[in-house]
């Protein structure tokens, strides 16, 4: 009855590796939900965070939005959306996006605000355009913080995307929801383990991205 026993039983069962309920399919679905939600959240939060951070205005409004976003119960939102719109992917995406926007928005804003003002002053004095300053001076310096915001958002989405299963969609939540319903704890533990592994893989991915994207000059001087 121990945990390791469940895990090894789940993963050694050949039938769990194929078909529409197989691990590859469910992982694929989970990755798809995660990427979609993260892309939408980033598309909303990054521009807003970059622009407000560059001009240094709207910090208080951002903090309010972020707090409100964090206070919204994800599961409640899912149920509400489903009651209003019926079953569908939008119902799942909305709470996931709402979950990921605050960390991306706040760290992007903070990252831009914490850029040393003297290179920005030098750039402006040399005749660099405002867009040039934003993308060539501030963004590279703020990138470590921005990536950390994206990482928190991504991890939260990975762990929370299991809720898709509650409204008949796929993903790794399927194992947990179905397992609980069927009292198949081997399946529950297996699904939870896969979610944890995906979260770790996300961490590793962001580490690799920051190695490539962040200039050694910024990485070492921080």
């Amino acid at each position, binding site marked *: 009855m121990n945990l390791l026993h469940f895990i090894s039983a789940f993963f050694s069962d050949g039938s769990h590796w194929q078909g529409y309920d197989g691990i590859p399919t469910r992982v694929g679905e989970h990755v798809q939900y995660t990427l979609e939600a993260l892309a939408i959240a980033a598309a909303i939060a990054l521009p807003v965070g970059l622009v407000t951070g560059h001009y240094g205005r709207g910090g208080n409004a951002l903090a309010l939005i972020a707090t409100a976003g964090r206070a919204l119960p994800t599961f409640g939102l899912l149920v509400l959306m489903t009651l209003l719109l019926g079953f569908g992917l939008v119902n799942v995406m909305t709470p996931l996006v709402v979950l990921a926007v605050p960390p991306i928005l706040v760290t992007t804003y903070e990252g831009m605000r914490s850029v*040393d003002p*003297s*290179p*920005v*002053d*030098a*750039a*402006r*004095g*040399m*005749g*660099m*355009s405002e867009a*040039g300053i934003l993308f*060539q*001076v501030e963004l*590279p*310096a703020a990138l470590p913080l921005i990536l950390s915001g994206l990482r928190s958002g991504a991890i939260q989405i990975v762990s929370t995307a299991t809720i898709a299963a509650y409204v008949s969609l796929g993903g790794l939540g399927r194992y947990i929801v179905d397992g609980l319903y069927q009292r198949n704890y081997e399946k529950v533990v297996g699904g939870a383990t896969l979610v944890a592994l995906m979260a770790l893989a996300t961490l590793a991915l962001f580490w690799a991205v920051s190695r490539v994207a*962040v*200039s*050694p*000059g*910024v990485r*070492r*001087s921080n």
Partner: protein
Amino acid sequence: MIRIDSVTKRYPDGTVAVDRLSLEIPDRSITVLVGPSGCGKTTTLRMINRMIEPSEGTILIDGVDSRQQPVNTLRRSMGYVIQNAGLFQHRTIVDNIATVPRLLGWSKDKARARARELMERVGLDASLARRYPYQLSGGQQQRVGVARALAADPPVLLMDEPFSAVDPVVRKGLQDELLRIQDELGKTIVFVTHDIDEAVKLGTMVAVLRTGGRLAQFAPPAELLSDPADAFVEDFLGADRGIRRLSFFSSAGLDLLTAPIVAIDASAEQIARAGTDVPYLLVTDVEGKPLGWSEPRDLTAGTIEPAELLPCGRPFVAGRDSLRAALDCAVLSPTGWAVAVDAEGRAAGVVSQQTIGEAIRGAHAEGSRSSETTKVSG
């Protein structure tokens, strides 16, 4: 030429940073804006490249209102150096320097080649090109800042307290380097500092501003030291402006005595002849370089030990150094006599405090007749 024409900067809260300031900044020379904090010197500088827009008045660049051209075109035609260098941490040294050429649309290769050329000009080793700013010392970073400002060869250089954040030894090196570069390039430099010594050392013209952004005096440094316009300027120049002014008088006119100099291998007869009417003799090595002082009666031919001599301290270079340097040598010398050397470091003569004092009185009399004095080093 840059002409600042009754420019005022007033902030919305009513603070006046610069008050009807007019200045004509001469071409191809260093004009220093100096004054206490809150005197509007940085504001004035930043109005020249329109980092701050004047509330009233105009700034003319070669006779044309600076607002006539797009702001970024104006800024790219002026090098800009700030206090902490403001380097881009994510770019290598060579790419930092290449910034403005790249903005002007040069190819990457051409911009980098130009950047390497400038590294050499400002005294940075070529091996630093691929480093990042965090790997450089403060002084090296500031050299990169200067190189970056010079990269597109702008006619004007704006420098906002560029050397204030480095230690005094490094600062002196950077100042000397700036003067050397200026000798080669002849830029129109506007230099802001709160340090009057730096202003006197670097400036061809010095504008002293007082709190509230008004001009107190605009004059060459020698005139500033000899004829401060009012009590404020006099106070700002400090208690030792008389001594500082000596920097502007050459030691060339000093009467150097060569008789009291003996070589270490001198004969008894030479020693006796040298030491008749002076309290001390200067002993040199066989090449003529000064070793130290001794009283004539303590010297015996053939047995002179350099270790037993009184130290002669740092000598001044006759003709090249100023009277200030000569006086300094005399004051620091244990005998009260200063040692003059030639460019090769061989003893050229000795001079007493009394003789230097007479030369100073003579120079002051000369200086008050004509304020046209040129700066000498040291």
